[in-house]
């Protein structure tokens, strides 16, 4: 079964870290987006099994990405990977419909564990 993941982060290095973790979790198709608007445009082009998004990005934020994806009626799992660790921000993301939340900095194993939760073995 082919798993397709969308990764949205304005940092190329952070995208590389997430791509590496996703591949080690068995993800075979990865699409990268450089900001929130790019993520939403790519989300509209094809179906995804999992979305990982940063919060602070140019154009549209990760919070906008979650709200707009949920606004389309999609229940695709979305993991927020962000420096925004305050309780208020986590609550905002939960209210918007995030499926899981990982605060930077993180251990590589923490990121893999979050991805593994949503990738069928």
């Amino acid at each position: 079964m082919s798993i397709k993941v969308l990764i949205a982060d304005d940092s190329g290095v952070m995208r590389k870290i997430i791509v590496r973790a996703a591949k080690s979790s068995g993800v075979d198709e990865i699409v990268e987006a450089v900001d929130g608007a790019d993520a939403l445009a790519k989300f509209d082009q094809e179906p995804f099994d999992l979305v990982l998004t940063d919060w602070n990005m140019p154009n549209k934020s990760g919070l906008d990405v979650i709200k707009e994806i949920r606004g389309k009626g999609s229940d695709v799992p979305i993991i927020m990977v962000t420096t925004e660790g305050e309780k208020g921000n986590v609550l905002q993301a939960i209210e918007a419909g995030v499926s899981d939340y990982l605060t930077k900095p993180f251990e590589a194993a923490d990121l893999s564990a979050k991805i593994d939760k949503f990738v069928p073995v």
Partner: protein
Amino acid sequence: MNADYINPFIESAVSVFEMMLGCQVKRTGAKVCESFAPQFDITGIIGLSGRATGDVVISFERELALLATEALIGEKPTDLSADVIDTIGELTNMIAGNAKASMEELELKLALPTVIVGKNHTIRFPSKVRPIALAFESDMGYFNIEVGLMESACVEVG
């Protein structure tokens, strides 16, 4: 500047280096200064706003920047490439973001980081801000963090 705002940045730098780079960090000095002249080769700057406003400026030794990039992506760059610039932006973002989470009462928001390459640059804080400079050494090299935060006189309501 309120010295209570400094500890979160020290703790955050230690945590970010340990978790993301697997690297031990030790603070070697601290001083109040008028303006900032980065000692090192590549500098990340990020703005904070909320009940306090200001900037965090983090300057990294070249070799540290290269080794940090290698630790994050698994291959060592030979020059200050786009990957190195991204690494410095991301480390700056994480250090400031993680520190801000420890100061929830200030309701701080992060701007997007900017990275400057080259030794001969000076960054000036607003005249009312007396930044505090922190020097660090790590297993990968030297860096310093300058924090200039000023509590806002009033906060918009509604």
